[in-house]
Every structure is written in C-alpha cells, then in structure tokens.
C-alpha cells in the first residue's frame, strides 16, 4: 500500500490501526442484525407488490386473505393518515411526506414494478406469503414511462397528475424541476476555444448492492408508544419519517439501530419500518418484516440513470475556456433525484470562468431513487472526466498535467459561488502521478491506462456525544451514529487520544433515539467529521471535569493542574501525578460521576470538501469486449486519517462499486416495465475474483474547520472509476465509450463499429 503523506507523528492513538471493538462479534456471528431480533409472540409480515410499472388501482379486496388461519392483520394506504404535501428537512435531505407515504403503500396508483400495495401479518412467514397471494387487486394498466427521454416527451403518459414545475405552469408534467448554474459567458468561452469536444452520455440505473436486505421489527405499546428495531443509517431520520407517515409525534417512537450489513446511502430512508409499526398496532404483537433480495432490487431505491450532454472547450495550451452541460436524471416514481448534486459536481475540481449547467429532475416508472455514495456525482464525472481526457489528448498534454493546470485551489469559487477553503485537489491528482502504479510501464496488446478525478462536498449537520468515566478509569463513549465503516472505533480512538487512555480502555456504543441526543444520519461522509467533533468536545468536557477533581484532591485551582502524557500534575510538596485510572477511584468523594457531553451543529454541505483520483489499467478482449482490470490505484484527501485501515477500506469499497458501475451493473426492464434482473446472479456486481487488490494513497490536507483536520472519506472514491475505466478502454481500443455500463456486448459492438469505420476509411484512402 502507498503510505499516508503525513504519518501520525503528533498523536499517540490517532493514525494507528487498532482492532475495531465490534470486530470479534461481527466475525463470529454474535453481532445482532435487524433480522436476528425475536420477541415473544412475534408475527411475520409480508408485502404485496405491484406486478405493473404503471397502473391505477381500481379496487383492493383482502377478505379471503384475512380469513386464512394464522393471518392476524392486513394494512393498506387506507390505514395511513393524510400526509402533508410539502418539502421538509429530514436529515440531510429535503423530502415530501405525501410522496414518502405514497411510496410506503401505493395510494390510488402503482408507479413501478414492486411498488408496495398491502402488508400482511401472520403467525408464520409462509402463511403471510400465502395470504399475500390471496389479496385481489383490480388494476387499470397504463403505459410505462421508463426513460428520461420518454418522460420528457410532449405527450408522455403522466405519472403524478398534480406534479407541476415553475416553467411549465399549470400543465401536468414528468419534469419535477429545472435548476441552472451559470457564470460568465459560455458562448464566448466556447468561441475562444481552440479545441471543443461535445458528447452525449447515458448511464444506467444501478443499486447500492448492500448484502443485508431491509428489515424492521415493530413493537407497539398500548400507551401509544412504538419501538422499531431496524437496519438503518439514521435512527433519528427513521423516527422523523415514520412520525410523518404515521401522523405521530417523534417522541412516540423509539428507534433502535441494529448492526448494519451495508447501506451506502440506500438505508437513509424508510420502507418496512412504518409497516412494522402499523401491523404491530393492529395485532397487538411485535411484527417482523424482512425483504428478499428480489424485493430489495425491485422496490428499494437505486440511484438515477441519466442522460448528460456536455460541450467543453480549451485553448491549445490546455486552459479550459468554457463548458456547457445538460443533465436529466431519473428520480424514479417520485421527485428527488440527485441532479442538483450532479450539477454542482460535474465541473467542481476546475477553475472555469464561463459555464452553464442545466439539470432536470424527471419522474419515471422505476423505484424512487435513494442516495448512493456521492449521489449524482459519479454520473456527472463519467461525462466531465472523459471529455477532459479527450481535450488533454488534443492538446498533447498528460491528463494529470491538464487537470493541475485548470485546478481549483483555496479561494477558487465553487460552482455555487462560495470560495473553497483549503482543499487538496492538486495534491490528490499528484499522488496518482507519483504512485508506483502511474510510474510503471504498461505493456501488452489491448491494454490501456486511464485516470480520472472526482469531488464530493461532504456534509456536517448535527451530532451528540457522551463520554462517561467509569470508576475503574476506563471510559464509555456513546453516540447516535450507525457504524457503517468502522466509525465507532474512530470515536473510541478520539476519546482515548484526548484522555490519554489506551483505546482498549474505551468502549464505544451506538445508542437508540431515547438514549443519546439528536444525531443526524450516517451519510454524506459526515460521521467522523461531525460525530467525531462531538466526541472530541465531549472528551474535552470530561477532561475539564477531571482536572477540577484533581484540583479538589490537591486543594489547588483547576488552572494550576496540567494534563500531559496521560497524567494530571500540579506544583506543590507531596503532590504526585495521577492517571485517569487513579483519579477515577476518587470521583465519588470529589463530586460524583464525571460525564462529558457535547452536541454540534456544524453546517450543511461542503464543510470539508474532498477529492479523489483513480488510475486504472485494463485489458480488453477484442473478441468478446470483456474488460479485465489489471491494476487500480485510488488517491483521496482524508484531511486526517483517524484509523488509516478504515479510510483505506472506504477508498477500496467505493472504488470497487465504481468499477462495477463502470463495467456491468444496470437495471434491465422489459417493454412492460418489469425488472428482469432482480437477483445478484443477473444484476452483476464485482466480486473478489473480478478485481485486483486496490492500491491506496491517503493524502492528508487538514480540514481547517475541524479540530483534528478530518474530512469525510466515505463517498468520493466512487466518483472517478467509471471515467477512469472509459479513458483506459479508449487507450486500449481507440473507442470512446459514452454509455454505462461498458459491458461486453456494448463494448464489443462499439469496437466492431470502430473497426468497420477504420476499414472503410482505409478503403476510401486506397
């Protein structure tokens, strides 16, 4: 592995690689996931899902199902209260409770293959499955609208009759919104260019591919309070969203986050959670629901497919003079694609004086999209980074040199206007340039090397933390951040660093919504940044109190007590330094327990923007179009890597997902709008047999607004790989791919067309 650029010289614990506290339980099967929960008298739930992509529901009859022995309750949208039709902030996203409710259970229309219509609770899962088959639904099938092209046509079938946008006035539409970012004069900028590249890209809808399906166990008390155990990235968000959908106040619901088998953004929303509570209320029993893999793919949120048109120009010495981008993203059945993020990311690493970016959020008869690791940015980078590669080639410049020449730095204006604070884009691409991989020679036929860069804002938001000093001098640190990548180990490390303890003496806990202060979602690469900040502050608060206790013990003022190398000391005869362990034994007699507390509200997006760059070597089989990844290196600015192994894990994980997105993954619908690859055999994600060990280079340009310099690391590594692979394929085959995935049939077709075109050209020349 390539080494971090800064090392950990200033810290005792931060920057080391201790074994994670939850590791043994996870590898021995003791860790408790959502589907592991069981309660006395628990029932099992199953969901009836639409077989149609687009249809009006004319009637639902569940009499036969309800009469089946073992069936205890059935719920439909008729059991849901009217939800507000407005945009509200939940976690890091804006959402519409009415649309959320319509996605949980279809109201008068089904809008995608797999859309939930009813949920059954029964004494066994098999009885529930049989009962679902007995529910009779009369549909009026409507034409499916499956692509942004179809949805934006003038006479397209309309998905949501009440949907309007500002530009089309009071006309029903499938285009939920249009946003635009503009600077300078793009026409003049393109006119001033010596080289202009214009291309159109289409990227397929893909799923986050977490191994663990969605699950929820709901319990309802007769006093009106409910409890939900579930796999989630945000217990407080589940609570808020369920409260909205069920018409309850948040204080009536407790959410207990189970261990999570992957989320990647897909578990920042709700599907089964309100159903579990509705069925628990109706039956008086706990009710468990678990999705099958087919349901996960059909009915939980993938990320958008997209169409992106981009035109970019530069001078012959490689200065970008203008860029024009048009992007339409699939939102799925309800508005809310990540087109805004895509628009803000497509040109983000570059200092461009003239640009115009137009983004359209378009509804289609597919599952409502959910967040997926830097949502919107990967699609955008596929377009932006391949065009930049093409311009670099026209200028005769190395692709990294071209990027450095146009790079944003501290003080450069972001796409949305505010200037960047200290950022590490140049250092990140140069880490690739200086890597053993990039410096090595690539030999052999049908082989090529490509690189690309990517950007993600990273979020801040709200977190709470508590640090308790135990009577034996160990500590517990309690946060509300679901641990999806080793974050609880980082929280323990931060606590240990501040308190001068061993990391094994700090016990981290992820708590439920009643047991810790409000904490926003584990998403947006915010956890080590914001929850880490809260933990740091809580540990400092505990340390301040411990100093006061030491002072009391020695009859000194707190400001006379020093804490250095894990020991409290003060000037004076007979005063011997004390460790936290020694002081802990005296807490009862010096004022009682010591609990450090902190809560932070660190701002929204862009609190620690991060860049990644990927270099990839490929070999393309000229007869089949199959691409083999020979070598892959990812560089990423982490600010400060608290636990380098887990930072590297995020980098490798994001890169693996990006490579799958590049080469194989796509949702395949037939003409009726039925998903035909709703299983992992046919929805082909990369396995360890498909990829080499991914090399990593952690760059550390400290984030100026974090006490430890931390930047979020969880997302940005997924952004560059598709473009890097496309650029490598070009060098191997001479073909510029503009469609994702670059699967064997697509690439083979493109190569054959390219060869035919060359043969014709050669024949004409003769």
């Amino acid at each position, binding site marked *: 592995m390539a080494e971090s650029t800064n090392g950990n010289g200033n810290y005792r614990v931060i920057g080391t690689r201790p074994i994670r506290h939850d590791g043994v339980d996870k590898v021995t099967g003791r860790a408790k996931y959502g589907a592991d929960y069981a309660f006395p008298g628990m029932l099992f739930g199953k969901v009836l899902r639409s077989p149609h992509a687009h249809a009006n529901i004319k009637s639902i009859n569940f009499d036969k199902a309800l009469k089946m022995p073992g069936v205890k309750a059935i719920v439909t949208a008729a059991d849901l209260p009217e939800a507000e039709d*407005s*945009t*509200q*902030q939940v*976690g*890091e*996203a*804006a*959402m519409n409770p009415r649309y959320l409710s319509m996605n949980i259970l279809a109201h008068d229309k089904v809008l995608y293959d797999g859309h939930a219509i009813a949920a059954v609770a029964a004494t066994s899962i098999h009885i529930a499955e049989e009962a679902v088959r007995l529910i009779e639904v009369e549909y009026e099938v409507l034409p499916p609208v499956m692509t942004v092209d179809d949805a934006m046509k003038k006479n397209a079938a309309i998905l949501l009759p009440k949907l309007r946008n500002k530009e089309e006035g009071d006309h029903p539409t499938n285009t939920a919104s249009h*946003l635009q970012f*503009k*600077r300078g004069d793009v026409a003049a900028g393109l006119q001033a260019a010596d080289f202009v590249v214009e291309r159109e890209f289409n990227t397929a809808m893909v799923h*986050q591919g977490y191994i663990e399906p969605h699950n929820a166990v709901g319990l309802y008390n007769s006093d009106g309070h409910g409890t939900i155990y579930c796999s989630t*990235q945000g217990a407080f968000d589940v609570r808020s969203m369920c409260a909205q959908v069920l018409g309850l106040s948040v204080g009536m619901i407790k959410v207990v986050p189970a261990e999570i088998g992957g*989320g*990647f*953004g897909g578990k*920042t929303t709700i599907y089964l959670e309100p159903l579990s509570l509705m069925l628990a209320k109706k039956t008086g029993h706990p009710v468990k629901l678990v999705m099958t893999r087919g349901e996960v793919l059909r009915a939980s949120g993938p990320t958008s497919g997209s169409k992106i048109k981009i035109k970019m120009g530069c001078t012959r010495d490689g200065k970008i003079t203008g860029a024009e981008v048009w992007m339409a993203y699939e939102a799925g059945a309800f508005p809310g694609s*990540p087109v*805004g*993020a895509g628009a*803000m990311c497509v040109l983000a690493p570059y200092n461009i004086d003239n640009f115009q970016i137009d983004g359209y959020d378009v509804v289609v008869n597919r599952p409502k999209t959910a*967040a*997926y*690791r*830097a*949502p919107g940015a990967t699609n955008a980078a596929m377009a932006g980074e391949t065009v930049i590669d093409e311009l670099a080639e026209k200028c005769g410049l190395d692709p990294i040199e071209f990027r450095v020449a146009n790079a944003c730095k501290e003080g450069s204006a972001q796409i*949305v*206007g*505010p*200037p960047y*604070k200290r950022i590490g884009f140049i250092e990140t691409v140069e880490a690739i340039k200086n890597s053993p991989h990039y410096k090595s020679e690539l030999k052999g036929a049908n082989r090529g090397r490509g690189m690309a860069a990517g950007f*993600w*804002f*990273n*979020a*801040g938001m709200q977190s709470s933390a508590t640090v308790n000093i135990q009577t034996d001098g160990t500590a517990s640190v309690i946060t509300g951040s679901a641990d*999806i*990548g080793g974050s609880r180990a980082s929280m323990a490390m931060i606590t240990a660093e501040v308190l001068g303890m061993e990391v094994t003496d700090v016990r981290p806990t992820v708590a439920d919504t009643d047991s810790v202060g409000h904490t926003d979602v*584990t*998403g*947006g*690469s*915010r956890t080590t940044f914001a929850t880490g900040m809260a933990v740091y502050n809580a540990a400092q608060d505990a340390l301040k109190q411990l100093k006061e206790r030491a002072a009391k013990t020695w009859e000194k003022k707190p400001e006379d007590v020093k804490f250095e190398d894990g020991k409290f000391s003060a000037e004076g005869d007979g005063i011997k330094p004390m460790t936290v362990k020694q002081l802990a034994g005296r807490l009862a007699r010096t004022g009682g327990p010591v609990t450090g507390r902190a809560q932070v*509200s*660190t*701002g*929204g*997006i*862009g*609190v620690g923007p991060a860049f990644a760059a990927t270099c990839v070597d490929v070999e393309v089989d000229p007869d089949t179009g199959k691409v083999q990844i020979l070598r892959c290196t990812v560089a990423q600015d982490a600010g400060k890597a608290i636990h380098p192994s887990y930072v590297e894990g*995020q980098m490798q994980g*994001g890169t693996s997902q990006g490579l799958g997105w590049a080469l194989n993954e796509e949702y395949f619908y037939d003409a009726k709008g039925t998903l035909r690859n709703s299983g992992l055999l046919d929805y082909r994600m990369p396995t360890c047999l498909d990829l080499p060990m991914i090399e990593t280079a952690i760059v550390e340009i400290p984030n100026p*607004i974090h006490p430890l310099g931390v930047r979020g690391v*969880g*997302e940005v590594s*997924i952004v560059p790989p598709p473009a890097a692979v496309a650029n490598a394929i070009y060098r191997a085959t001479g073909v510029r791919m503009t469609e994702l995935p670059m699967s064997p049939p697509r690439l083979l077709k493109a190569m054959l067309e390219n060869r035919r075109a060359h043969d014709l050209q050669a024949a004409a020349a003769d």
Partner: protein
Amino acid sequence: MRKLTGGHDRVTVSGKNLREAIADLDRQFPGIASQLLDDGDIKASIAVAIDGEVGTSGVLDTIRENSEIHFMPSIAGGT
C-alpha cells in the same frame, strides 16, 4: 433565481441577519422571499452559505458588513 432578479447574478442587500437580508431582497425584487422562505424560515430544499460556511440557524444566521451570501440547493449524501 436570476429570473427573479432581472438577470443579475449579484445584488447588494442590507441587514444584520438573513431574515433582514431576505426582507431587503424582497423589497428590491418583490416575490423573491416566497421562493426562499417557507413558514418564515429558509426552505428545506435550500442551503445558505455565508462567507463560505453553510449556516445552521436559518433566518437567524448573522451577517456582517461585506458578507457574501450564496443560496444553493440542499444536497443529500450516501454512505
């Protein structure tokens, strides 16, 4: 938003916090406040950066003389 400000990409406003700044903006360009505010506070779909930092207090975020205010879409993240 430029459509609401007569094509200007930069306008000057006065006020000690965002509430006052938006009120002044609305005086100059009537109707713009309804695009930015919902129930008296910043819409959930909008993030506001003041001097490069996204605010956390909505309309109560303070501004200084010569502060730069940017209105941006609110963004969701993944992992």
